[in-house]
């Protein structure tokens, strides 16, 4: 497996609510690496597909993940017909950051749903280790040219880093 960087964005300052990673323009599998991601207010970093570089806000996002918690029973995080995916639960303190790998499937295809797998390790505002592993689907057959990450409350924190790679053989 090889990786070719397609797009990257490191948030500078505290006035950015959303970042777009554009470039899922072939039928390859894509990967997103996230480090040091957090928000200026306690909440979530949410995710949407980009269609013609605009976030798709339709209620067509389904997901199912296992919530992996170091100091409590695990949970099932399952949602249907949302207008976003939610894979990262954030805090606004220095050490409350999220790290993750996402794989993106079928984003470029106009005749297939777009799928994603997520593996997240985060330190939440409780604070505690909170991981989330599973996947999701956006249930409209459409060509998506990228992915967006945005803060559900406040903005993305300074230093949050998101990088999109194409997976190549």
């Amino acid at each position, binding site marked *: *497996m090889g*990786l070719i*960087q*397609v797009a990257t964005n490191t948030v500078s300052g505290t006035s950015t609510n959303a970042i777009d990673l554009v470039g899922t323009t072939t039928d390859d599998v894509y990967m997103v690496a996230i480090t040091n991601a957090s928000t200026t207010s306690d909440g979530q970093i949410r995710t949407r597909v980009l269609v013609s570089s605009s976030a798709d806000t339709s209620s067509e996002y389904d997901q199912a993940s296992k919530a992996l918690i170091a100091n409590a029973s695990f949970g099932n995080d399952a949602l249907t017909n949302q207008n976003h995916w939610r894979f990262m639960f954030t805090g606004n303190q220095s050490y409350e*950051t999220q790290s993750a790998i996402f794989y993106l499937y079928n984003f470029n295809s106009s005749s297939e749903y777009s799928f994603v797998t997520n593996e997240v390790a985060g330190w939440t505002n409780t604070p505690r280790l909170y991981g989330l*592993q599973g996947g999701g689907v956006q249930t409209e057959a459409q060509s998506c040219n990228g992915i967006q990450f945005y803060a559900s409350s406040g903005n993305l924190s300074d230093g949050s*880093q998101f990088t999109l790679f194409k997976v190549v053989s």
Partner: protein
Amino acid sequence: MSEFGYIPEAPEQSFGNNKGIFKPKDIYDLTRADKYTNYGQLELIETKTGSGVSAIDFTAIKETEYNVHLLTINDFNVTTDGQPTGIRLSNGSFISSGYQWANQTGRAGGSFAENRSTSSTYLEIGRLNGNTTNEKLNGYVYFYNLGDSSKYSFLTHQTTYTNEFSAEYMMSFGSGVRPTADTVSGIRLTSTSGNITVTSASLYGIKEYS
């Protein structure tokens, strides 16, 4: 002619600003000097093997170059039945306390379990490992923030293996953290008792460019 051999000598080469005609050796030399534009790579840092050893240590992980590391593990086996597969991190010396992890495991016999710790001596990525020929663990681990002295170090993993109970199939996925902000400069693959044998363990860095 430049120090890298390309013609003409000027302009000076740098990442994101290469000009001229390059021979393969020019590209090789410029890449090694981090002056050849090649966006994003999965770069092999080191591959190690071990037979009957207490641990496999990666001590030159290039933590200042990568935000994300990937460790692949091929055929991990323990000498003492029932021991876990564990990771320890080094900040100059390998650390044996203060880890937290939360893993979901499942067995082909139908038993699933939530395994977790808030005060572990290692980061677990597998458990109930076996010591016979066909009891082997395979999988991968992603590490995050190892080189950032101001952030906690995280990992996520997925492993697939045959455990100590007559090579029953088992899987594990989960997350872990060392909730101490410092620079991690080493990764240890080990267990808690006895020795380990590993056909290969490869550490990669995921290169990112701003």
